[in-house]
């Protein structure tokens, strides 16, 4: 606990960053985000963009699964809806990209609301399985609604343009996606300072006592689905712009599992967890690649073990974190922070 942070009003006490130190850290973080492009190469910028998109998506899933306790295995398919919305608008309407992105979020929210309907009837594992079904049905639509999605042939998207600057490369795209990511994360963080976010957590922790407190389970569950889908829609739209081409196989079930794994590893039910998890899971393959390179003198055909090893590590991370650190990286981070807070007065 920090000493000497007396507040004079409840508003101040309710602030997102309660201490000056926190503000300093936040400013430092923002500054490093601004500086990053100037010290890194295109490949790292590419990863940064990908991480940002994944952070948005994982944060959305975290709202639904981590905070509200509604497990969804359809998150990638929702991203697909957003991506296809952007792709369709890009190919058929000359609307600016931010409108397309908003439309993507809107359409995905609507689809998410429908896909969330089973949550009114079933919960827990059954709901997870219902979302698998939703994901397959959406996949079917992507493949077979050829007039909109061009079916399995996939669909190309022109890069977005802001004030004449074409964002067709990570070094330009970065400046769009990172601010959006920061805003989306702050919005999510805000949500959990208010009654809406608290109601979500209440439903996760104990739905029965939530309803005794006057929280309408159907309304809030659907709301959570809608918000998660909104995030997925934005992330999917950005993904479409970033990749420049999408097809039905761009959003497989495995990708939904990826996001679930990201929030498990990062820490379910904390905003920081979604961020850390998305970063960690996106970058782990890179690290593994490096590790395999290091190991290459000792094994033949190191290239050929990378992908299985990645699959194994992916699974092992899920299992390991659930077994040993169910609160994820966020908890590890907190422990580290607490250690340094108390340092050198160790307890």
């Amino acid at each position: 606990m920090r000493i000497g942070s007396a507040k004079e009003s409840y508003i101040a006490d309710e602030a997102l960053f309660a201490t000056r130190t926190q503000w300093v850290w936040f400013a430092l973080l923002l500054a490093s985000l601004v500086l990053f492009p100037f010290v890194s190469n295109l490949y790292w910028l590419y990863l940064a963009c990908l991480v940002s998109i994944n952070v948005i998506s994982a944060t959305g899933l975290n709202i639904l699964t981590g905070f509200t306790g509604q497990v969804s295995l359809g998150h990638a398919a929702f991203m697909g809806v957003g991506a296809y919305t952007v792709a369709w608008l890009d190919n058929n309407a000359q609307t600016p990209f931010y409108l397309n992105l908003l439309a993507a979020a809107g359409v995905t929210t609507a689809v998410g609301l429908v896909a969330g309907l089973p949550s009114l009837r079933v919960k827990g594992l059954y709901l997870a399985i219902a979302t698998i079904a939703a994901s397959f049905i959406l996949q079917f639509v992507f493949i077979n609604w050829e007039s909109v999605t061009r079916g399995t042939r996939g669909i190309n998207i022109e890069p977005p343009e802001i004030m004449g600057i074409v964002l067709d490369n990570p070094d330009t795209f970065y400046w769009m996606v990172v601010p959006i990511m920061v805003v989306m994360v702050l919005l999510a963080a805000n949500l959990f300072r208010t009654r809406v976010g608290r109601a979500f957590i209440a439903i996760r922790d104990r739905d029965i006592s939530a309803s005794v407190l006057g929280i309408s389970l159907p309304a809030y569950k659907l709301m959570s689905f809608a918000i998660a889908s909104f995030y997925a829609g934005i992330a999917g739209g950005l993904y479409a712009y970033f990749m420049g081409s999408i097809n039905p196989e761009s959003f497989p079930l495995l990708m939904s599992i990826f996001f679930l794994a990201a929030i498990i590893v990062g820490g379910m039910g904390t905003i920081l967890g979604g961020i850390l998890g998305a970063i960690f899971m996106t970058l782990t393959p890179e690290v593994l690649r490096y590790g395999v390179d290091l190991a290459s003198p000792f094994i033949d055909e190191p290239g050929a073990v990378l992908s299985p090893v990645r699959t194994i590590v992916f699974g092992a991370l899920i299992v390991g974190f659930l077994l040993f650190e169910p609160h994820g990286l966020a908890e590890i981070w907190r422990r580290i922070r607490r250690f340094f807070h108390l340092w050198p007065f160790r307890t």
Partner: protein
Amino acid sequence: MDWLFFIEVSLAGIGAGSLYALTAIAFVLIYKATRVINLAIGEMLMVGAYLFFALGAGWSLSWWLAIPMALVGGGLLGMLLERGVIRPMLGENPISVFMVTIGLGSILVGTVELIWTSAPRSLPGFMPDEAIFIGEAFIAPNTFWGFVIAAVVIALFLLLFRFWRGGVALRATASDQGAAWAMGINVPAVYSLAWGLAGMIAAGSGILLGAMSGVSPEMAMFGLTVLVVVIVGGLDSVFGALLAGLLIGWMESVVGVYLGGEYEHLVTFILLMLVLLVRPWGLFGSHEIERL
């Protein structure tokens, strides 16, 4: 309407459905004993098939030796998973356990790819190759013998479940773990037994499935349809698993022929959605009243 054709298609579907039913029983067994929704069932099935591949094709053992060994291997795998990963998780939030099984599935797939690569392989043949006709209706020998073997295994299993003392222990544990423990049943051992048996059954289905269409890491996807089967049948109902397995096999077959193969999975998942909305506990599952 061409009735003979319809009958042939239906028989083929029921044949395929028998494999769903068999795997679904493994799933239900695990669920009943440990209340774990095991999403890694498809991967366990795949590992079983690869074990048979390794023994039968790699070590060139004859099939009557390789199959039992692969089954035992599958059983050991099941027990290993239970003891190593599932047991420490028992009592945790069921969703965490569920996600652990997703992680396990990933580990199994990666391991198989590491050892055998992901190239599709053919299994050594062990089923008779002559065409079977029921009346005029043709049944592929693979389908027919697959069905017969699945039926025999299922029957054997049901008999065990019913009359073997261990079967009673299993059912007692499924019915009430606390009371079973208080009655002197070694409940942790029953957990291992259930996972071991389920691993064996899954390996068996894997071998049958592999005999029909070869083995590859992709065959783990079979587990997803099995998941649909058990939800439709009712997670805790052996009878439901059997019936839903045959039903979904039949339905996929008929839909595939009359609507086109692209609709097979769609229809399966639409059925799943309908069941979840109308009767979430499945056609034959027990509906537990939520006591507060």
